[in-house]
């Protein structure tokens, strides 16, 4: 496994958790930020996130009242910001599952410092993603029609041959399993919080921890359960973005109708997700003072994943273009030339610069060591991956088969507001998570500390 090698390379002499922490110190370090009142920085960030969320709520409310006509879509470009944002957010979520499930199966110990918040990121990102297809329906109060239930219209069943319907099941399952996995992982830490708290906090954490008592029998089952869920989540995460890619690949639009799409989407999702994990972790490290837990070793490991996945994404772009030329299909050729050199060509080059060129800088140790540079690069990759979805969706649609149908897509203020709102929702939830739940998996970090005799 390439990931395995990326990490083996970090066989530094530095310990995984810095500062020679004892088990008790880990408990205190992770729990005490939750037991103090929030810092001014947290309030500032929360205020900004909530404002963005409110702007989004206004935008969504307006488009529900007036209709989808408030978007910049037309007969030719039927998918724009909505589906771009949907694919972007689903992709972000995938790194969380990768870190919690795949790295658990590969027994990568460095995941313990970041898996909890990466899983939280997954759940919140999937929530943001789910928002877009629902409002895209135009009449979201009828969203339950996507489920197969006995109805008074026949019963007329849903069309199980449609990739859009596969999406409903894929995203629904992904969200449910991620939530269950996350909650089970939280149980021992909720018990830790319960045993430290008093009053109403003790009651709430006590209720949430489901009476966890740390019995060896429970731990034994718990570990089996986590391994099983990880084994289920691994093919699940691959299936989710594969299904998302079939939304495009099963259509006949040149630029979408390609067999490369599933692996290309999955690796792109991992790439963008890891970039988002890096962004969040570097901020959390500073703001929550987790320098001893999220060490340069973790950052190095994630950077190497980014170099690898970024290179695969670059290879996918090349393969796609080569196939377009080699296929001899004039529509396919035209679509790819139009993508790079047409009126929206600038977006293509932003994508290439951000996703293919910028991660290559992470080959250099000196750049990986400069955490501020890594932070900037992670943001650049996030932007690039958003543009990738935009380029795939919009440039393929703008040039229809008939020149008379050609069109140009520009997002409206309502669409920009909705995008901003999704970021608001994501960061509001993430900041609440930082305040009320342990950001670092306490029991798992304790498990990777060197024992008393090894120290």
């Amino acid at each position, binding site marked *: 496994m390439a990931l395995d090698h990326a990490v083996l390379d970090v066989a530094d002499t530095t310990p995984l958790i810095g500062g020679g922490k004892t088990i*008790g110190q880990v408990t205190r370090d992770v729990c005490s930020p939750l037991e103090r009142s929030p810092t001014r920085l947290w309030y500032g960030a929360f205020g900004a996130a909530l404002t963005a969320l409110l702007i989004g709520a206004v935008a969504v409310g307006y488009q529900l009242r007036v209709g989808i006509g408030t978007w910049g879509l037309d007969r030719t470009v039927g998918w724009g910001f909505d589906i771009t944002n949907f694919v972007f957010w689903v992709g972000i979520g995938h790194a969380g599952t990768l870190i919690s499930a795949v790295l658990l199966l590969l027994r990568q110990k460095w995941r313990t410092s970041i898996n909890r918040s990466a899983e939280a990121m997954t759940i919140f990102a999937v929530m943001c993603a789910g928002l877009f297809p629902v409002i895209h329906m135009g009449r979201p109060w009828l969203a339950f029609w996507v489920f197969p239930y006995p109805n008074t219209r026949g019963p007329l069943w849903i069309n*199980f041959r449609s990739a859009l319907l596969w999406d409903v099941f894929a995203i629904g*399952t992904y969200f449910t399993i991620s939530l269950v996995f996350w909650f089970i992982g939280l149980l021992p830490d909720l018990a830790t919080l319960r*045993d430290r708290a008093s009053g109403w906090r003790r009651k709430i954490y006590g209720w949430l921890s489901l009476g966890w008592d740390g019995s*060896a029998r429970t731990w034994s089952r*718990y570990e089996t*359960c986590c391994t099983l869920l990880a084994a*289920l989540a691994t093919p699940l995460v691959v*299936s989710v973005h594969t299904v998302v890619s079939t939304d495009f690949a099963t259509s006949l639009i040149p630029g979408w109708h390609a067999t490369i799409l599933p692996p290309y989407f999955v690796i792109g999702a991992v790439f963008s997700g890891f970039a988002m994990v890096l962004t969040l972790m570097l901020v959390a490290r500073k703001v929550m003072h987790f320098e001893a837990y999220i060490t340069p070793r973790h950052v190095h490991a994630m950077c190497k994943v980014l170099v690898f996945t970024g290179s695969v994404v670059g290879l996918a772009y090349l393969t796609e273009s080569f196939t377009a030329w080699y296929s001899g299909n004039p529509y396919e050729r035209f679509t790819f030339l139009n993508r790079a050199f047409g009126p929206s060509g600038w977006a293509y080059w932003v994508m290439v610069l951000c996703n293919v060129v910028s991660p290559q800088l992470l080959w250099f140790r000196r750049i990986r060591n400069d955490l501020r540079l890594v932070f900037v690069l992670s943001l650049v990759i996030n932007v690039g991956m958003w543009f990738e979805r935009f380029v795939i969706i919009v440039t393929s649609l703008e040039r229809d088969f008939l020149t008379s149908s050609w069109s140009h897509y520009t997002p409206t203020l309502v669409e920009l507001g909705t995008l901003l709102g999704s970021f608001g929702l994501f960061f509001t939830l993430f900041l609440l998570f930082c305040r009320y739940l342990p950001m670092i998996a306490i029991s798992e970090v304790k498990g990777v500390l060197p*024992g008393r005799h090894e120290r």
Partner: protein
Amino acid sequence: MSRRVHVALFEDGAELVAAANACSRLRIPIVDAYLPFPVHGLDEAMGLRRSRLPLVCFGGGLVGLSLGLALQYWTSAVDWPLNVGGKPFQSFPAFVPVAFELMVLCAGLATAGALFVRSRLLPGHVGVVVDPRVSDDRFVLVVAPAGASIRAADLRALLMEHGAIECREQIVTDRHVEARS
């Protein structure tokens, strides 16, 4: 019924495992251990059998898969066959993604549900908190010497010798003990 148990607190998981091994060699029944994180080698020392959760997971997956395929077949080809773009009513390849997702969903929920039920992890349930420091940095071994040929003082010495920092005798009700075996 209630019985007398010895509760020994350790600062290190490895010490607890060593003590548990010593106890099982002397055939002193180990009631349970309470830990802040899983310590390896303890399952063997306590003689715990392998969890049967994988079977539950497999069963759940099987149910989900059959349910998914049956639902799609029945709705698309039996109850109201609808011609969608000339595709066959029973279009098996197109049914694979939904069947797969339902398989994963049922397998995952069954596994998690079985864990909750088997380990009595339920809202409002209060577990056996032998010592509140268990969720922080203490490892607790609970042994019941009843019937074993060892005197209380010897058992205490044995536990202390293996690094216990505290050792006390306690009366526990059987409900706590047997319900979790």
